């Protein structure tokens, strides 16, 4: 594949190796970073997830990326027995790649492994929150899962639980994942590459790709160059500016939504007129090319695929005169609008983030607001993201990007907008009540309560500087046929990749 040799030598090599037909089905994928481990319970870390989810390990349920519907995978069906207990029927004839049978006991072990106390487990922390799961095998292929508190969407939550084999060591983050997926890990050259190969005894349909090698380059231009040159077949995530070849580059909504969180309790930002003015002052349409022309203006922190999304909310639009008038009005009422507002940024949170903040600063100065930008590294930025806030009296707008992976607004609303939410700067009794009303509810009542909360946050409270539903870009070599989807940020399902010839 490499073209360092002259054509003659290359032809010689091709002749010599023509016996290895299988190599025609091997692909190379270039990622932005090396995974820290391949621990199934760290699969929410995108660098881990893109290698193992659906390829090495699988889950009981999956969310279909396009429709957002929940579908069976390792479980074939499920039902709720009582408020706390769910019964899952497991798929028959599935084995782990180490030969062990996939059964209720294996899933119980995997769930236990997920909840162990000795190491940090992202899945447990992030998705299961404070909820304890107890898994009890009923028979070989029937499993009861009991939760410590009512969870109406447990089957959805199970879509992020990667089922690891019972043989996986209980301690430490594993570098050798064993699962039920179509591929097994064949090698991991630290710092260089990870290779997966197709299993002979996979339970499902045989994917076309027989071998996949993952490499990583942190520079977007280099990732794009590798596909252009044929050194890689898929570059997951390249910057919009590098996506300049319509033949190879695909834009896709990546599920992320951006906002500037406003410290709504600190003057002058406690005045809704100032908050509205900050929204009206931004020419978001004109700024869009900075982060990607295919992005959509957002008026809530979740996208259309998420239960609770309110399609009726409309962006504020660009109206600098109105914005300046609102600031003046607030000033006339004694609001300290001349106070410096800090714009908190995080380098590289998304491509173009620094330019976006600079543009905001310039546009806000047009309506008479003074701002200063403070950029932080991730570690420092996170301190300002979470309560208790380091400088609670500092009027600020805080760069935030959010991805609701599970498709239900509850995973957004509580943390971001409830008075007790860890990331929340909002204290509004009505929003709190709507969130609390929606969480235990199901069906339309749940959806409507969440929609009402988003409407209150946007229309009445103007709690954020609302920004974009973001797009990602991938570059795909003409050698393969594959299209990115909203799930591409968290996984790369190799079985979806077809060879062009």
């Amino acid at each position, binding site marked *: 594949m*490499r*073209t*360092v040799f002259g054509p003659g030598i290359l032809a010689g090599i091709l002749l010599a190796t023509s016996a290895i037909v299988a190599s025609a089905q091997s692909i190379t994928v270039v990622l932005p970073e*090396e995974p*820290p*481990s391949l*621990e199934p319970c760290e699969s*929410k870390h995108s660098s881990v997830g893109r290698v193992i989810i659906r390829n090495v390990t699988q889950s009981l349920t999956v969310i279909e990326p396009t429709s957002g519907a929940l579908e069976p995978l390792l479980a074939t069906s499920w039902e709720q027995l009582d408020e706390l207990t769910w019964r899952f029927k497991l798929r028959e004839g599935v084995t782990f790649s180490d030969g062990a049978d996939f059964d209720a006991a294996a899933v119980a072990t995997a769930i236990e492994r997920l909840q162990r*106390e*000795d*190491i*940090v487990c*992202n899945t447990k*922390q*992030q998705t299961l929150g*404070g909820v304890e799961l107890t898994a009890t095998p009923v028979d070989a292929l029937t499993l009861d899962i009991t939760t410590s508190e009512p969870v109406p969407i447990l089957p959805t939550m199970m879509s992020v639980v990667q089922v690891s084999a019972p043989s996986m060591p209980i301690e*430490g*983050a594993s*570098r050798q994942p064993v699962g039920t997926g179509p591929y097994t890990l064949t090698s991991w050259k*630290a*710092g*260089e590459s990870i290779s997966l190969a197709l299993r002979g005894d996979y339970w499902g349909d045989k994917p076309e790709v027989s071998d996949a090698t993952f*490499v*990583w*380059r*942190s*520079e977007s*231009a*280099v990732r794009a*160059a*590798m596909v*252009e*040159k044929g*050194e890689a077949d898929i570059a997951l995530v390249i910057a919009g500016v590098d996506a300049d070849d319509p033949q190879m580059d695909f834009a896709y909504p990546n599920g992320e939504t951006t906002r500037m969180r406003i410290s709504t309790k600190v003057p002058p930002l406690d005045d809704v007129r100032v908050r509205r003015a900050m929204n009206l002052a931004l020419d978001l349409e004109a700024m869009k090319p900075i982060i990607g022309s295919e992005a959509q203006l957002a008026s809530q922190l979740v996208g259309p695929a998420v239960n609770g999304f309110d399609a009726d909310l409309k962006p504020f639009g660009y109206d600098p005169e109105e914005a300046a008038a609102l600031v003046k009005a607030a000033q006339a009422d004694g609001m300290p609008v001349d106070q410096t507002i800090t714009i908190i940024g995080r380098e590289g949170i998304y491509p173009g983030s620094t330019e976006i903040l600079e543009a905001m600063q310039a546009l806000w100065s047009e309506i008479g607001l003074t701002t200063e930008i403070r950029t932080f*590294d*991730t*570690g*420092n930025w*996170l*301190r300002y*993201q*979470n*309560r*208790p806030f380091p400088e609670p009296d500092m009027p600020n707008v805080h760069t935030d990007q959010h991805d609701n992976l599970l498709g239900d607004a509850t995973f957004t609303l509580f*943390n971001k907008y409830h008075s007790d*939410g*860890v*990331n929340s700067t909002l204290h509004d009794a009505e929003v709190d009540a709507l969130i609390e009303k929606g969480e235990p509810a199901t069906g339309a009542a749940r959806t409507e309560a969440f929609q009402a909360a988003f409407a209150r946050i946007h229309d009445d409270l103007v709690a954020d500087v609302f920004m974009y539903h973001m797009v990602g870009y991938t570059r795909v070599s003409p050698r393969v046929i594959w299209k990115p989807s909203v799930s591409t940020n968290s996984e790369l399902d190799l079985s979806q990749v077809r060879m062009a010839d």
Partner: protein
Amino acid sequence: MNLFRRTLLTLFSLVGLFALVFFLSRVTGDPSYLFLPVDASAEARAAFSRAQGFDQPVSIQFFSYLKSILNGDFGTSLRQQRPAMDIALEAFPVTLRLIAVSLSIAFAGALLFGCLAAIRPRGIADRLISLVSLAGASAPDFWVAIMLVLVFSVKLDLLPTSGLGGPAYWVLPVFVLVLRPFGLLGQVVRGAMIQTLSAPFIKTARAKGVAEQRVVFVHALRNAMLPVVTVAGDLTASLLNGAVIVETVFGWPGIGGVMINAILQRDFAVIQATILVTAVAILALNIVIDLAYGWLDPRLRTA
């Protein structure tokens, strides 16, 4: 120069450095923010700190760490959950190979072209060499690196973009790494040589009829080496701390990238292990350079 005393003093530096790194890196923030999800509660973070021992006073952490070092345990990476020293020792040889090749080329080139430039200061050769070397030394390395990839791998299709492999894979990273050392050293050689070539002992050598090439490359060069060796040492030290840009652009898994990531992720065990590895190399290098002074100038050796 008493080598034993010098080594002993260096050990003080090492211990001092290590203590400083240990205590000061812990000033740079609570790792629980980075290791737990963004919505983790304050209780979850406290539990994490307890589990990792970060709730202990730093001095207690320090001494228990020293104790485990004596048992050969340099701690476990929080991010990768494997021994931190393994991570450092996997990455270090990659960096070492890269800078050994680059610096040898830069050093040889700087000596040759620096001397050529110094033979006739302000001549055509001098002006050309100075322009090229200074331009290389002051160009932003990431710009050069990405430009080279776009031109030589994509447009001209001559070289692989990045990655580890045969000689072709070395060309671009080595070229980028050579630029600054070559430019700086070349100018230092030139400056020192101009000075030396007008010294009385050179005039004497010329008067004695020693061949001009021998005058320049043997008599004068050896006397001009003092600042060259010092600056070369400094350049080597800064590259030992990581040729980060080159490593990240070209995907070479060297120690610089590992160290930077560990610092940004507050993965303390890896910070400590990588600094320990590079510090041993840098401090040893400083000893070698001090020895080289003695070799270059016999009068220093008698100290």
